[in-house]
């Protein structure tokens, strides 16, 4: 990639650059890093490289503060997973932690300094109803009470409407697959469950196998239409790659598994953009062999253009003029690949007209009560 990369990516690629930054550069780095959700991760990397003492005090405070927050989130996630395991223990179903919670539970470097807000779990589809009942009994309630949303999630999605614990306010997404039911080329979740690994420290709770973890991370990033944490998620993939690539046979397993799971396109995107933006060490022959999984031209060139814009931090200093258009196009794409047009059009129409009207009504009600109202 030839265009100038944002400072935060330069520093991520070579953490030793932190010691040579001028104060105006620090000013920019902290702002870009905050927007990208990467400050805690930069702290963890600087700590590993033993650079913390060499950083100027004021900017370093921001790294420290983000790290404190991320550590707290990771600790809370570990504890909360224990609560979920307890709530579900009588069902004897495997509970698979996904994404942030999984990284934290399995002690991956990708967990260090990574802040996240929702817990994600995967459970076998046949057990879904029982799982939901047990969680309700233990204080988790559905947050999307809107009838349309409930129907939409339950009929078409690979998860049920998100739940929130009534007292602890933790958000929980319960998946029964990693891609929506409406996607034709989606992996059979049973294959993921078969390879899952039980955590020693938390019996009954599993994480996906290493290569499945990698593929799920890529699937999540390149299938979803939201990119406000795009760069953070791309660095997840980079760190997973660096951690796993040392194991014998990792690359062969990864490629073979992506074919079994129908996730070859996601593998291609994951390798291409981590390599291009973050200089992730991917062997030349793997890049070559996975090039076959690329979309056909001219789509390939178009996706390059879109992803390489959308994956930059959403900060005025590095968001190109075409950034909003790229994110919009990817948002539409995420829906188009998720649903056939006869389902998609009514859904987008509902989201475009009915939902904003409802939100407007709710907000007007809250505005009457006064005070500082957080923006959605």
């Amino acid at each position, binding site marked *: 990639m030839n265009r100038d990369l944002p400072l935060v990516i330069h520093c991520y690629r070579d953490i030793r650059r932190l010691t040579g930054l*001028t*104060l*105006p550069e*620090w*000013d920019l780095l902290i*702002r870009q890093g*905050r*927007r990208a959700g990467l400050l805690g991760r930069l702290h963890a990397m600087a700590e590993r490289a033993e650079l913390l003492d060499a950083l*100027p005090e*004021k*900017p370093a*405070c*921001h790294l*420290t*503060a*983000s790290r*404190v*927050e991320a*550590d*707290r989130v990771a*600790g809370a996630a570990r504890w909360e997973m224990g609560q979920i395991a307890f709530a579900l223990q009588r069902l004897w179903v495997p509970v698979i932690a996904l994404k942030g919670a999984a990284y934290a539970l399995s002690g991956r470097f990708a967990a260090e300094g990574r802040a996240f807000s929702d817990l994600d779990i995967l459970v076998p589809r046949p057990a879904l109803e029982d799982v939901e009942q047990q969680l309700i009994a233990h204080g988790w309630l559905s947050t999307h009470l809107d009838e349309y949303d409930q129907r939409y999630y339950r009929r078409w999605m690979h998860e049920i409407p998100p739940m929130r614990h009534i007292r602890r306010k933790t958000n929980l997404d319960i998946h029964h697959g990693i891609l929506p039911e409406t996607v034709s080329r989606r992996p059979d979740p049973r294959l993921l469950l078969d390879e899952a690994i039980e955590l020693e420290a938390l019996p009954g709770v599993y994480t996906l196998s290493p290569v499945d973890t990698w593929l799920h991370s890529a699937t999540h990033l390149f299938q979803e239409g939201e990119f406000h944490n795009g760069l953070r998620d791309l660095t997840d993939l980079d760190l997973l790659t660096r951690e796993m690539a040392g194991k014998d046979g990792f690359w062969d397993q990864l490629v073979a598994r992506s074919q079994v799971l129908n996730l070859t396109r996601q593998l291609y995107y994951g390798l291409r953009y981590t390599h291009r933006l973050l200089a992730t060490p991917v062997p030349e022959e793997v890049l070559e062999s996975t090039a076959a999984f690329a979309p056909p031209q001219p789509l390939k060139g178009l996706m390059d253009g879109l992803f390489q814009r959308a994956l930059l931090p959403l*900060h*005025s200093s590095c968001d190109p003029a075409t950034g909003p258009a790229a994110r919009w196009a990817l948002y539409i794409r995420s829906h188009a690949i998720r649903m056939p047009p006869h389902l998609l059009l009514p859904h987008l129409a509902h989201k475009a007209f009915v939902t904003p009207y409802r939100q407007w009504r709710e*907000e007007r009600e809250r*505005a009457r009560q*006064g*005070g*500082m*109202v*957080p*923006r959605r």
Partner: protein
Amino acid sequence: MKLSELTRQALAQALRREGIGLSIGPFSVRLRSRIGYVADSLHRLYADYPLADDHQFHDFHIAVERPRGIRHVISPQALFLVDGEPPFKPLPLNQAYPFFEWGLNWCVAQYAHQFLILHAAVVERDGIAAILPGSPGAGKSTLCASLVARGWRLLSDEMALIPRVTERLVPIPRPVALKNDSIDILKHFAPEQVFGDSFHDTAKGTVAHMKPPAESIRRAGEPAPPRLLIFPRFAKDTEMKLEPLSRGRSFLKAVEYSFNYDFLGADGFRRMDRLISACDCYDFNYPSLEAGLDGLTRLWERTLAAETAP
């Protein structure tokens, strides 16, 4: 250079264009605003603050601006922006200045986890800092403003910042926010002090700010050792009552007033323990401002005498 060296007009112009840098306690804040209310209040209340325009690093880039769109023709609004992003919905335009103050509080509570932060007023006299945690209505700001008007140094009317390495409290002096009845009480009690405009019909009722003393701003870089932790409660028609609290009870009560105790884990526990160990802790009920001041002054005298005794 201090903000008072700018005329009202020069300040408004700087705020409109490149913004101004303000040193506020340990933070350097870059502020832009095209809204006249903001310039007016800053000019009056922030006169003694050092400008941080030569700073090359700013902790928070803040703007208070009118939202775009045509809505402002009907009811003008102000938006609080951190580095270009609004964390909150807009408020009515005439609340632009208090919005800045609330927003800056939010920034510190949200992003400054290098400190253990308690929701408390902090004042100091002769090397004895008193922390006054308070729920809304407990009168912490009123007590704080009146102590400051009587010559105590203001460290903060809103948050106690407890750093990692020492127990000394880091000052973050800001205009003292007074609400409803306490505005007139303070204006009557300390007419010599400078007060900002009153802003009516906010979420907290009417709000007005008292300008912090120049001396407190000048000494904003000097941390102070905590010696008293007092939980004030204003209750009319009661006796003044000062009740010593055990360390355990004080610890648990202080945790309730912390913004980020749970974030800091074991480190938060150690810091809180160090703080409580350094302090005498009390529950303090007072029926009137005079009684409150009187009680606190006597407590301060006792603590000072104990401190200086051989």
